[in-house]
C-alpha cells in the first residue's frame, strides 16, 4: 500500500513537474513566434521593395523596347520609301585664293578661282552618268574674265568586274593631278605649273574609252577622243603676265589653248590615249600615259603636211610612313611645226616643236587626329613651254623683249591644314628663278565633297 502511495505521489509530482514544465515551455513558444513574425514581416518588406525595384526596371526595359521598336519602324520606313533622289548623286568642289606679289603689294588679288558642282545619276547596277559644271573666277559674262564650263559629261557602263566603257566628255588620264584635281588632293594654294602648262589640267576631251583595274593593282585606261586644234593659239601675242596669278591663268601652255573641250570641236582627226598604272603596294603609285593624234585640219587649201601632237608623262607618288613624295616628268612634241610657223613669220608666239616639265615634291604629316591634319610641303618644278622651235625667222627666238620667259624654275614651300578631310586651308611662298618679280605669298581655301 505504502508503495502505491509513494508511486502515486511520484506520479503526482511528475505530473506537476510536467505541467510546470509545460507552462514554462508555453511561455517560451510565444516569444519565438513573435520573433518569427517580425522576421517574416521584414522579409515581406524587403520583397516588396525588390518588387518595386523590379517594376521600375521592367518599365525601363519596356520604354527601351518601345524606343527600339520606334527605331526599327523608322529604319523600315526609311528603307521602304522609294525616292527619285535615291539614284542621284550631288558633289562639288571649289577654291578661293589670295595672292600677293612680294615685290608689289598693289598687284595683290583675291579670286574665287573655281566653283564646281557635280550631278550623277545611276540608271541601273551597271550604268551611271556623271557631270561637272564649273564657274571660273566667280562671274561669267562678256565683261568679266570668268567662264562657265562643262568639265565632265559622260556615261559609264560596267561590262564585267574588270572592264568598263565610257562615252562623252571625260578627263584624260594624264599625270597625278588631272583626274584628281580637287583642292583637297594637292599641295599648295595653286596647282603646279607643270600640270598647268605642259599637261593642260583640267584636260578633258570628247570620245569613247575603256578602263579597268585588276586585283593585283594594275589599272588601265584606253580610248579615242577629239584632239588638238593648233589655230586655238594666238601666234601674234607673246606671253604677258603682270603677276604669277596672271601667268597661271594665261593659257600659255602649248596645249592649254589648243585642246578643244568638246566645244564645237573639230573632229576631222581623232587622237588616242593609253594610261597604265600600278598601285599594288600600299602607298605606292607609279604610272605613265601617252596621248597622240594629228592636229585638226587648219585650212584644207594649205597643205602643211599634218602636225602630230604627242604628250607623254611618267609619274610616281610614294607615301612611306608620314611622308608624301611625288615626282612627275612630262614632255610634248608637235611635228611639222616648220610649215605651220611659216604661216606667221616673225610672230612673237610661235608653236613649239617640243615642250617639257618636271617636278619633285615632298610633304610630311606633322600632326593628325581623326579630324585635323597639318602637312607642310616643298616643291621644286621646272617648265619649258618652248624647248625647241622650227620654221622661225633666222635670228629670232622667243621670248621677244617685254615678253615673259617661256621657261622657269619655281620653288614653293607651304602648308596644307585640313580642318576636315573635305576642307583645307593653305598657305605658301613661291619664288621664280627667271621671272623673279613674280615671286609671291598665297593663302587659299579649298572645299570638296
Amino acid at each position: 500500500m505504502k508503495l502505491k502511495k509513494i508511486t502515486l505521489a511520484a506520479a503526482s509530482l511528475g505530473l506537476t513537474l510536467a505541467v510546470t514544465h509545460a507552462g514554462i515551455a508555453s511561455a517560451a513558444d510565444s516569444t519565438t513566434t513573435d520573433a518569427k513574425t517580425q522576421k517574416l514581416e521584414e522579409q515581406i518588406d524587403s520583397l516588396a521593395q525588390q518588387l518595386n525595384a523590379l517594376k521600375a526596371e521592367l518599365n525601363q526595359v519596356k520604354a527601351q523596347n518601345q524606343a527600339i521598336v520606334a527605331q526599327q519602324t523608322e529604319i523600315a520606313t526609311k528603307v521602304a520609301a522609294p525616292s527619285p533622289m535615291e539614284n542621284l548623286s550631288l558633289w562639288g568642289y571649289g577654291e578661293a585664293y589670295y595672292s600677293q606679289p612680294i615685290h608689289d603689294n598693289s598687284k595683290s588679288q583675291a579670286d574665287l578661282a573655281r566653283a564646281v558642282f557635280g550631278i550623277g545619276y545611276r540608271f541601273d547596277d551597271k550604268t551611271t552618268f556623271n557631270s561637272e559644271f564649273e564657274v571660273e573666277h566667280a562671274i561669267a559674262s562678256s565683261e568679266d574674265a570668268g567662264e562657265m564650263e562643262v568639265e565632265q559629261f559622260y556615261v559609264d557602263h560596267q561590262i564585267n568586274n574588270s572592264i568598263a566603257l565610257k562615252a562623252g566628255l571625260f578627263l584624260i588620264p594624264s599625270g597625278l593631278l588631272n583626274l584628281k584635281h580637287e583642292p583637297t588632293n594637292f599641295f599648295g594654294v595653286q596647282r603646279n605649273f607643270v600640270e598647268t602648262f605642259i599637261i593642260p589640267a583640267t584636260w578633258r576631251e570628247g570620245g569613247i574609252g575603256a578602263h579597268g583595274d585588276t586585283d593585283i593593282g594594275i589599272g588601265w585606261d584606253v580610248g579615242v577622243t577629239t584632239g588638238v586644234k593648233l589655230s586655238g593659239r594666238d601666234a601674234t601675242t607673246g606671253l604677258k603676265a603682270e603677276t604669277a596669278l596672271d601667268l597661271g591663268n594665261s593659257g600659255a601652255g602649248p596645249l592649254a589653248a589648243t585642246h578643244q573641250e568638246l566645244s564645237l570641236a573639230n573632229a576631222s582627226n581623232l587622237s588616242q590615249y593609253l594610261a597604265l598604272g600600278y598601285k599594288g603596294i600600299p602607298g605606292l603609285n607609279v604610272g605613265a600615259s601617252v596621248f597622240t593624234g594629228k592636229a585638226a585640219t587648219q585650212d584644207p587649201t594649205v597643205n602643211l603636211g599634218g602636225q602630230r601632237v604627242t604628250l607623254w608623262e611618267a609619274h610616281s607618288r610614294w607615301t612611306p610612313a608620314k611622308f608624301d613624295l611625288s615626282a612627275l616628268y612630262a614632255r610634248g612634241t608637235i611635228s611639222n611645226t616648220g610649215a605651220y610657223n611659216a604661216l606667221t613669220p616673225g610672230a612673237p608666239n610661235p608653236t613649239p616643236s617640243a615642250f617639257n616639265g618636271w617636278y619633285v615634291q615632298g610633304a610630311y604629316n606633322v600632326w593628325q587626329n581623326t579630324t585635323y591634319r597639318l602637312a607642310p610641303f616643298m616643291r621644286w618644278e621646272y617648265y619649258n613651254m618652248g624647248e625647241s622651235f622650227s620654221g622661225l625667222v633666222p635670228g629670232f627666238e622667243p621670248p621677244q623683249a617685254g615678253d615673259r620667259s617661256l621657261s622657269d624654275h619655281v620653288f614653293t614651300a607651304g602648308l596644307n591644314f585640313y580642318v576636315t578631310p573635305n576642307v583645307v586651308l593653305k598657305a605658301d611662298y613661291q619664288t621664280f628663278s627667271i621671272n623673279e618679280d613674280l615671286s609671291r605669298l598665297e593663302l587659299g581655301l579649298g572645299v570638296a565633297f
Partner: protein
Amino acid sequence: MAAVSPAYAVTYLSLDQAQALMFPGALLTPASKILTAEQVAAVEKGSGVRMSSPQVQAWRSVDGGWFLLDQVIGKHELISYALALDASGVIRQVEILDYRESYGGEIRVPAWRKQFVGKKSGAPLLLDDDIKNISGATLSCRHITEGIRKMLAVYATALAH
C-alpha cells in the same frame, strides 16, 4: 542569311561567299543588333565617326569570332565590306563585297587590306598614318578606314561583353 546588301554594279563577293571565305567551315549565327542611343554616342565618341544607322549587321562564329558587315560611301556611291574579328576583337581579315564607283576600285588590292590585319579597338587607324593611302583612291581608302575604326568601336562598346 538573306542577302543584306542590294546587288551592286561590281559584286566581288556575295555575303555567303564572304562568310565562307572568312570563316571556312564554321557555323555563323546571326547576331545583328540595334544599338541604344547611349551605345551609338559611345561608338561615335570612341571612333570619331558618325553612325548613319544604329543597326549593326553581325554574325557570331562558334569559336567566338565575329563577322561584321558594313557599308560606307566611297566618293558618292556605297561600298560594302566585311570584317572578320577573332574572339578577342582583333581583325583577322577585311574583304570588299561590292564596289560601285567608276574609279578607285584599287581598295580591293590584297596588300592594302592586309594593313588592317592584327589591329584592334584603340589602334589609331588613320589614313596616311598607320594606314597607307592609295593615291587616286583616297576617298574610298579614307571611308573604309573610318568604317573599320567605327566597327571596332562597335565591337568594344556592344559586342565584346
